[in-house]
């Protein structure tokens, strides 16, 4: 009995039997029919899952014959691992879909049986090994879909349905013709039989046969531009049905393609082009889309064509062994995420993207949406991430670089429109609809859980220490579950977790990673602690923060590029979401994400190229790349530079740094930016010293670095917004590090390390001071402040120390960085760059003075009379940073010696230390002596003034007691010189900082959008035109591949 229940044929038998009976039972007992339906659909889902389990555990693939007669004389089916996987996936989706559709199906036995048979049809498409039988199942699926489409009866659905019928029936007609020609040529209908007889499929008939067969299947996959009909259905069908079409039917068609691949060898290149074009075109057109369902349609088509592309390319490369992960991962990802999103859009009854505003009021829904979108965009820990990774590695190894590029560009575009949607959901707005019923949400939640589980499994299959590498995600999830706690305890919990983690991790790290471990985790902890000043509700903030901080650990501990990339993506995701929490961050988050993802994809491409050459993903083996060293280095550097905000790709930076929560800005600028620097270090250490092309790359890098430094500083001086100024300043500071790294000398790398540590200290300090100011003043526009030194003396002191350290004026730490860097540049012989560095560091004075003056000095506004200093929670970390800066100023060797030792393990040491005296090839610097001399020298005039004050009555006066050309000042606002502070500089050099990069990227965006407009011109909405496209597609395929003999 048990055995009978486990028969895979039951998938067909039970569905059909029940399907036929349902209308009858409905007449006598609706409840019974409903129960039977539920039972069946559960059975349908459980059975393949069990089989999947058995097959994974070593059971043999099932060959199922019918009619008691052996194939090829009868029809046979197969349930191997891949079939079981697809069937299980589809049936799971239909189970959840049925659950979701509950209301629509209730009381409609006919609809229920159609639904059952639809998923049965897809199962059949997947399992059958007979070509004509495949046709039958295609038709079953098609007609079942036609039937279900009619559940929602309005003009749009009906006309879309009709177009769908025309298209699919034409496709199946061609398919049938192809099948018959194949039969004529090979004398069999059995696919395995045909493979044996494939030699017969040649000549003019063979060519026609193949092209018809391919066309039939490919059109089912909705290739661009012959896919308008599919999109119309996605847009207008009931969401549950659209989900089934997107997920189930496409899965069947995809598997059909998989089955016939061996039969159509000559068409593989054409298929690649078709799939690639469709993937790219759909994603470009998706950019223009503002209706969610059609958007999901474009995404569906793109994902399915990506699957097809991967499948065909891997077949071409004969890397079938990679298919389970790539195809399986991508498929599951698409299946659950896409279905989930369709359901969500249905459950919320919102179609226009604009209508999703205000969803952030409901964190659960927002979380679901975010997770599903993240999955769809291929972010970890979801299966799509692993699949894409593996795909890129395999393709790179196979030399298919251009396809890698296409896939990455397409994925990026997809992320753009998906996260634009998320951005809308994060924007403030009115909650339009009441929250949907739990019953409708549960399947979606289950889909999310399924995705997470699948991601975990996929990571397992790559042989990773899954729990450990996915720790950030799990920790995040765990903390979400205690999100109900008050804010500060959550912060303390985060601190405790991360501190323990750091305690475990940091001591293990050595060398460079140790240094960055201290910076990232230590700095992270400090900024987290500073964040405790906020007691307001911050939903999900600490969960994401934990994720962010733990991924620093992942980044540092990564031994392979996979682990590194994983941690990197975790960083991207968590920082993006944290950024989204900023009150007015919505307009800037998308740019942040796009550039972050672009950076990640550049890294991915770089790692792929490296893998292609070394066949290893170990980070240590990066150094073994020889021929492609320059290319790999270039890609990696581009990626990291994008994330670091180098000139040209900096456009995301000011908005992101400025609009994030104030404490998170500090984290972003001071700590997270160092992750990019760490990446730069890694790539330069591994690949920067290879000579040849690498030297060119490094030379370019030095210019990029210094131009970034210069323009960062120059743009900073024109900012009115405190945090924007700091943001540009950060950009400029990172530029110095980049330039120092580019020298490729011991001195330069010491300089880079030193600058990085310093930047962490003073930029963290500045952002924390800014947080305190903004908290008290409630403003970011600096000219609306002024004279706050009297209210916030400690904050002033912090900023003073920070700006002296930043400016590079001795005796504080900043000078060490400048000295090391300039020495390194001069030693390298990069004189022009050195000149630019001087200029940039001089320009930095301008914004530094402007910042401290407009905020703390000058005239205090009347409304700020009673402001208090920042809360202690903010001041303590500030004072700590001040202390560290001062300590390192007194003894720069405490910092330089370890860094020099670390770098000496990579390069011959050129920085020589004699006690506190440092010597480069050109100059020398004794930091300890300098600060002592300066200290002593400072005492002389101080004492003098104190003495003089004894003979001079010094009257402390107030802010309006100034010489004002014999008049009295009327108001602090008009007396405070702050707005457009450097207007003369603007007149002199303002032409340099016209927003060219922004204009360029806007142009790119606009260009992509108009490409979208251009590409979607094919979608006329007319069914007949679509039919014509299909016809043209068929003949084009034929003539493109072979044509008449």
């Amino acid at each position, binding site marked *: 009995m048990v055995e009978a229940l486990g028969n895979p044929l039951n998938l067909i038998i039970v569905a059909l039997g029940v399907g036929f009976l349902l209308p009858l039972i409905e007449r006598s007992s609706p409840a019974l029919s409903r129960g039977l339906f539920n039972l069946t659909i559960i059975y349908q889902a459980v059975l393949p899952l069990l089989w999947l389990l058995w097959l994974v555990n070593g059971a043999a693939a099932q060959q199922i014959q019918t009619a008691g007669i052996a194939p090829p004389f009868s029809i046979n089916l197969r349930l191997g691992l891949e079939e079981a996987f697809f069937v299980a996936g589809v049936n799971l989706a239909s189970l959840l879909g049925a659950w979701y559709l509950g209301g629509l199906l209730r009381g409609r036995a006919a609809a229920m049986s159609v639904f059952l048979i639809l998923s049965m049809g897809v199962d059949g498409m997947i399992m059958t090994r007979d070509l004509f039988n495949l046709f039958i199942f295609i038709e079953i699926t098609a007609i079942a879909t036609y039937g279900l489409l009619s559940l929602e009866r309005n003009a749009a659905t009906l006309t879309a349905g009709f177009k769908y019928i025309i298209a699919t029936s034409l496709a199946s007609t061609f398919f049938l013709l192809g099948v018959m020609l194949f039969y004529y040529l090979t004398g069999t209908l059995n696919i395995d039989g045909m493979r044996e007889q494939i030699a017969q499929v040649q000549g003019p008939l063979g060519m026609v046969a193949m092209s018809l067969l391919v066309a039939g299947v490919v059109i089912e996959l909705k290739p661009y531009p012959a896919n308008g009909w599919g999109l119309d259905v996605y847009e207008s069908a009931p969401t549950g049905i659209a989900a089934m079409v997107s997920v189930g039917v496409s899965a069947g068609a995809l598997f059909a393609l998989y089955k016939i691949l061996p039969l159509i060898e000559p068409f593989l290149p054409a298929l690649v082009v078709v799939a690639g074009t469709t993937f790219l075109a759909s994603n470009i057109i998706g950019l223009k889309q503002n209706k969610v369902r059609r958007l999901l349609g474009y995404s569906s088509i793109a994902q399915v064509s990506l699957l097809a592309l991967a499948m065909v390319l891997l077949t071409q490369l004969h890397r079938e062994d990679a298919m389970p992960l790539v195809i399986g991962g991508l498929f599951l990802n698409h299946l659950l995420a896409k279905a989930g999103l369709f359901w969500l859009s249905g459950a919320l009854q919102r179609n226009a993207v604009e209508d999703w505003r205000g969803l952030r009021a409901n964190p659960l829904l927002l979380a679901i949406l975010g997770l599903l979108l993240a999955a769809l965009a291929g972010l970890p820990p979801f299966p799509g991430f692993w699949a894409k990774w593996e795909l890129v590695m395999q393709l790179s190894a196979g030399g298919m670089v251009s396809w890698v590029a296409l896939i990455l560009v397409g994925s990026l575009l997809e992320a753009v429109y998906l996260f634009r949607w998320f951005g809308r959901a994060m924007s403030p707005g009115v909650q339009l609809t009441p929250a949907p019923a739990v019953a409708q949400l549960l399947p979606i939640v289950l889909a999310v859980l399924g995705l997470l589980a699948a991601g975990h499994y996929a990571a397992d299959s790559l042989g990773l220490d899954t729990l450990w590498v996915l720790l950030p995600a799990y920790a995040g999830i765990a903390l979400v579950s205690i999100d109900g706690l008050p804010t500060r305890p959550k912060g303390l919990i985060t601190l405790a977790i991360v501190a323990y983690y750091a305690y475990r991790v940091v001591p293990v790290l050595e060398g460079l990673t140790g240094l960055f471990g201290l910076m990232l985790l230590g700095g992270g902890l400090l900024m987290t602690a500073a964040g405790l000043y906020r007691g307001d509700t911050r939903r999900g903030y600490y969960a994401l923060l934990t994720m962010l901080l733990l991924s620093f650990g992942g980044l540092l501990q990564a031994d392979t590029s996979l682990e590194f990339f994983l941690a990197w993506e975790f960083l991207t995701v968590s920082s993006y979401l944290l950024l989204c929490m900023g009150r007015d961050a919505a307009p800037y988050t998308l740019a942040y994400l796009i550039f972050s993802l672009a950076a990640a994809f550049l890294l991915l491409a770089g790692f792929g190229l490296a893998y292609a050459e070394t066949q290893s993903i170990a980070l240590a083996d990066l150094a073994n790349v020889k021929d492609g060293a320059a290319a790999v280095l270039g890609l990696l550097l581009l990626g990291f530079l994008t994330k670091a905000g180098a000139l040209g790709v900096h456009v995301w930076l000011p908005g992101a740094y400025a609009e994030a929560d104030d404490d998170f800005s500090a984290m972003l600028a001071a700590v997270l930016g160092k992750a990019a620097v760490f990446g730069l270090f890694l790539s330069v250490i591994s690949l920067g010293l290879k000579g040849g092309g690498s030297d060119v790359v490094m030379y370019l890098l030095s210019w990029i670095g210094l131009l970034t430094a210069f323009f960062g500083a120059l743009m900073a001086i024109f900012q009115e917004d405190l945090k924007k100024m700091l943001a540009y300043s950060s950009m400029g500071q990172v530029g110095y590090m980049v330039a120092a790294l580019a020298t490729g000398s011991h001195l330069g790398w010491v300089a880079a390390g030193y600058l990085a540590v310093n930047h962490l200290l003073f930029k963290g300090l500045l952002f924390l001071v800014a947080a305190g100011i903004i908290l008290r003043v409630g403003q970011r526009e600096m000219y609306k402040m002024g004279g706050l030194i009297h209210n916030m003396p400690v904050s002033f002191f912090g900023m003073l120390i920070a700006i002296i350290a930043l400016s590079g004026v001795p005796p504080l730490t900043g000078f060490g960085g400048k000295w090391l860097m300039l020495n390194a540049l001069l030693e390298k012989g990069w004189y022009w760059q050195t000149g630019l560095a001087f200029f940039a560091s001089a320009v930095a004075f301008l914004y530094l003075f402007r910042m401290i003056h407009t905020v703390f000095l000058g005239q205090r506004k*009347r409304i700020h009379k009673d402001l208090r200093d920042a809360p202690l929670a903010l001041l303590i970390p500030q004072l700590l940073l001040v202390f560290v800066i001062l300590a390192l100023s007194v003894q720069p060797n405490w910092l330089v010696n370890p860094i020099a030792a670390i770098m000496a393990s990579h390069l011959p040491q050129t920085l020589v230390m004699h006690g506190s005296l440092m010597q480069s090839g050109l100059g020398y610097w004794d930091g300890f002596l300098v600060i002592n001399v300066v200290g002593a020298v400072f005492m002389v005039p101080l004492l003098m003034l104190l003495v003089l004050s004894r003979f001079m009555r010094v*009257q402390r*006066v*107030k802010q*309006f*007691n100034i*010489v004002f050309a*014999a008049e*009295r000042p009327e108001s*602090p606002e008009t007396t405070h010189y702050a707005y457009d502070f450097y207007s003369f500089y603007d007149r002199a050099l303002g032409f340099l900082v016209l927003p060219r990069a922004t204009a360029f990227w806007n142009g790119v965006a606009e260009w992509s959008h108009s490409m979208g407009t251009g590409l979607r011109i094919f979608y006329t909405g007319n069914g007949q035109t679509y039919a014509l496209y299909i016809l043209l597609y068929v003949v084009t395929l034929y003539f493109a591949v072979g044509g008449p003999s």
Partner: protein
Amino acid sequence: MDTQKYALGPLLNEGLSAEDRDLFSDARPVPYEPYPVAVVEKFVNWVRANSLWLLAFGTGCGAVELNPLMTARFDAYRMGVQMRPTPRQSSVFIIGGYASVKTLKRIIRSYEQMQGPKFVVCLGICPINGGMYWDSYNTVNKFDEYLPVDLYITGCMPRPEVLMAGVLELKKKIMEGRADGANRYVENFDWYKANQKRVIKDWNMPDYNW
């Protein structure tokens, strides 16, 4: 000198609106005493006399006579005289002729912003008795009712040569330690202030412009 005498508590600054009072100091000016060592005081007086920084504020028609003073013909620089654009750094205030009520207000403000020791020199007849403006509704007649004057240079208008003579006279006075107008102003502060307020109707300044 008895400091108690001047510790009469903060100024009331009644001319200011309540919110402006926070923005201006309400401290009372205090007179300074000579250095305890007489030699030092004498030396410092000599230094003061030889470094006369004029406030570049032409308050009336006489200002036109100040400019030739610095040119090649008269070259007051050689006597240690130079113009300073800010009252904070000046030590000599030359009232250039008649003082209209409107200007008087600015003169007072500028004078109070100068750091002591500071000296006032009146130029021409008008600050003495009003001169040709003696019955004008908007010109003060006896300037020393409003600010302490250390030296008068009479004439209408006095030529630069006379001005230079006046400078020499002022030097002499300073060296002798008799140019104590600043302390007189502080010691009789309430009387001066009352006089000032009597003529200046729109008193929207603090009582003492630090």
